């Protein structure tokens, strides 16, 4: 996939280290995300991919290293400053994380109401319906999350992520638990939304089909390090055994 991306870096990660007791998941990880780029982080389960994006959004604290989002060091931000940053950075959870005690409308309204004073365009209802029409699920507005299929829940979660029009979106395994057809639809939706809103994205995945559809650039996270980086074509043609095992 090719898009127009500039060289301006929106996320810059340097020397990131994170351990859980004796398990060193990130050893010295460095990567940069350019504006308008879709960067896929590819790695095995348990390799620290989700830990990486949770560190970026401030849900986890790294042991060492530096994470800058729009030039601001995430580790030194106060709680309020972190909240401000999170308006600009969306996060799509692997489990969708829809609030199961709320309707779809309330789920989408929730982040909007939190930041309404900063949101001057249109009224809440229009924004909710616009977000739902983006994912083709306007009819579900008054349903509960439990009434929807896994694929529909993923679309709603994507709509909720996009509703604040973030500049960066972090996707945590967006196709996990979905059948290949629905997974492909979600991947195309990610690309469409990226084009429509001109977002930059980090996509965590080990689904090669998803990687092929969404990636401008791939970073291989192996043994806690940025093992290799390149386009899908470059990496899929690599002779390196560790890289090849993902593409076989």
């Amino acid at each position: 996939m090719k898009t127009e991306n500039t060289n301006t870096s929106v996320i810059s990660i340097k020397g990131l280290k994170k351990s859980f007791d004796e398990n060193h998941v990130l050893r010295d990880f460095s990567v940069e995300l350019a504006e308008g780029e879709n960067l896929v982080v590819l790695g095995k389960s348990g390799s620290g991919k989700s830990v990486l994006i949770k560190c970026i959004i401030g849900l986890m604290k790294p042991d060492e290293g530096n994470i800058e989002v729009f030039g601001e060091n995430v580790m030194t931000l106060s709680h309020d400053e972190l909240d401000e940053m999170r308006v600009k950075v969306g996060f799509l959870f692997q489990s969708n994380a829809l609030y199961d005690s709320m309707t779809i409308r309330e789920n989408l309204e929730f982040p909007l109401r939190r930041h309404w004073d900063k949101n001057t365009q249109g009224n809440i209802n229009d924004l909710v319906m616009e977000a739902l029409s983006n994912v083709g699920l306007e009819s579900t507005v008054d349903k509960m999350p439990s009434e929807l299929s896994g694929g529909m829940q993923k679309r709603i979660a994507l709509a909720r992520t996009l509703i604040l029009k973030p500049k960066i979106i972090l996707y945590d395994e967006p196709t996990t638990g979905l059948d290949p057809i629905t997974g492909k639809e979600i991947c195309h939706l990610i690309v469409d939304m990226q084009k429509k809103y001109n977002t930059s994205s980090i996509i965590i995945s080990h689904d090669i089909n998803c990687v092929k559809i969404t990636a401008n650039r791939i970073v291989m996270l192996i043994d806690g390090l940025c093992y290799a980086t390149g386009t899908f074509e470059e990496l899929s043609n690599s002779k390196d055994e560790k890289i090849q095992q993902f593409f076989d």
Partner: protein
Amino acid sequence: MKKASALNNLLSEIGDLYLFIIKFFKEGFKPRYEFAEFFRQCYYIGNKTLPLIAVTGFIIGLVVTIQSYPSLEVFGTESWMPSVVSVSLVRELVPVITALICAGKIASGIGAELGSMKVTEQIDAMEVSGTNPFKYLVVTRVFATTLMLPLLMILCDTISLYGAYIAVDMKQASTFHLFTSQIFIKLTFGDLIPSIIKSLFFGFAIGIIGCFKGYYTKNGTQGVGKAANTAVVSATFALFIIDLIAVQIADIFHIIT
């Protein structure tokens, strides 16, 4: 070795609970205030527990009166029945029974709800959407239980006294007017106010323990069940400890006044 480890875990949990309470007082009085969620929780805790409290209160009033009657009859003091029963109901039985019902229904509900939100990453989702989940989920629930417990207790007091009246009327034909005037010979605000204060602490304990157990749930769905279960057990234990302390304080207060 195992005993040392269990003691270590217990002390560690008490330490964590202490820090959780400190965090509650730090976060609880700072804006932004989540009034909508607070009122929703008040409605949920108050309204949904009301029928259970009402039925239990009525039965307790009726049963305590019927059980006490033979003892008073032996001494020929049946006429004291309304005063004796009302004092024991208002001072001790109703606050404790109300709190125990709420511990069973509310603490487990909060523990399970927050636990399930934790394991399905809903709490993280709240945080990344720029909402302080501690304020939205914990502070509102703890304030709601602290406020609703005394109200439920007062309601339970009233219904249990009506139950007591029915029992008295069954044993020795009495009028409601006579029954209430006999109650207020002995029952004063000095009996009611300590039990209201006690209920505030009961409510706080139920809310904070339910939230603490749910908020730090681990190990997936198994952890949710454990959180709900331990929330009830810990809250019930805490209620008896608070009651023990409250009785001593109320006793000192009674001696002074």
